[in-house]
């Protein structure tokens, strides 16, 4: 229960930090997606049901603030959790490697999906510019942020649910 209750204050804080701080720390035109990193780390450390719930809550919160169509964020974060659920069974001996893999694939797929949807809705976004200036820099920043975030989320998961800890 506490695992799900803690999602509301924690993910609200993540949205605030993302919107007010992380969005200003740009590399070229891209920046890190703190929500994606948190959800990836949580999905690798916590139990399955809470990770899906967290992805839906986080997706709704981000889409409330963002001008992006609401389903893009929710679908993207659910996909991140899906990859994490698949990889945690296969790469359980090396959690950081699993984290990097989830971040890499999650960022790539989520940004490509957002790019596709925006182009379909009439926003002219050239693929080359978007890839070079947004997607790849965002991926690099996500990978850099994933190391400290993973440590924090691992401790939080251990704190709220000691029996769920799987190393």
């Amino acid at each position, binding site marked *: 229960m506490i695992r799900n209750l803690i999602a509301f204050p924690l993910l609200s804080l993540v949205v605030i930090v993302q919107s*007010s701080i992380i969005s200003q720390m740009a590399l070229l035109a891209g920046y890190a997606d703190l929500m994606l990193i948190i959800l990836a780390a949580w999905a690798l450390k916590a139990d399955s049901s809470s990770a899906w719930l967290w992805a839906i809550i986080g997706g709704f919160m981000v889409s409330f603030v963002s001008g992006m169509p609401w389903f893009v964020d929710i679908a993207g974060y659910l996909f991140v959790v899906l990859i994490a659920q698949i990889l945690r069974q296969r790469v359980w001996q090396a959690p950081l490697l699993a984290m990097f893999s989830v971040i890499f694939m999650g960022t790539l797929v989520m940004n490509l999906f957002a790019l596709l949807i*925006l182009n379909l809705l009439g926003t002219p976004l050239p693929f080359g510019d978007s890839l070079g200036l947004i997607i790849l820099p965002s991926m690099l920043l996500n990978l850099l942020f994933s190391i400290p975030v993973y440590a924090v989320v691992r401790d939080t998961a251990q704190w709220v649910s000691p029996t769920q800890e799987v190393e």
Partner: protein
Amino acid sequence: MRNLFGRSLQTTIIFLIVGGILVLAFGGYLGGASRGLGSSLVGMQTWFATRFAAIQDFLAAPRDIATLRQRNAELEAEVSRLQGQVIDLQQKVDETEILAALVDFSRANPESTYKGAAVVGRDPSPFLHYIIINRGSNDGVLRGMPVVTNQGLIGRVDAVIADAARVQLVTDPASAINIRLQNADTDAVLIGSVTGDLSLDMISQDVTVEPGDVVLTSGLGGGYPPDLIIGQVLNVRKRDFELFQQATIQPAVDFTRLEIVLIITNFRPVEIEPLVPITPP
């Protein structure tokens, strides 16, 4: 008697010697000797005083060091507090300068009514160029209201909740604004981009556009009020085989440093979609 004579002789000799020395001194003959003697004495005095001070410092040092450390800590705390105050005051000065510029702008443009708002966030998606401001429907902010700074147009309100609103910047890739080139006296369309650069499209090939031309909103389409400054033409691309010229724009506003903005609250965008003819299938 003999003893008395001996004492008188001694006294006389002493007086003579003292008198002689005084005469020599007044005559200036003892200057070198007295300087040498004086410097030797001063040297000795200095040597003793220095050693004494060193011994005194050595004996009193532990007490002084503790006092000095305590004083140092107090002063460091004081310096930290004052540095905090300086940063705080500098922030207030910066805010006051921005507010003063905005007040000047609103006085210079009395035809519009303004509501100030602070920028509290940016869109979490890097594909979109939106900002979040701390004024919403409780303050009379409505969707479509233009948002400006004292330097020029920055965008328009895209979504509103009770105490906040989201503003689509003119640099957003989905933004398209009808503009007027002041010097060339022609209309064009300003479009944003994924990098935040602004460019002009749909400039007629017949028109001469020069770098430095001022770009203003035209008011066409009813989305924005006319004559809001957007920027200046940076360079022009004219190709004979294309229908229109293109130009890149240097925006008047620094979009990376938006802190306080003004919402034009007496402007309502005109909804022209019902007037657009629908092509039959």
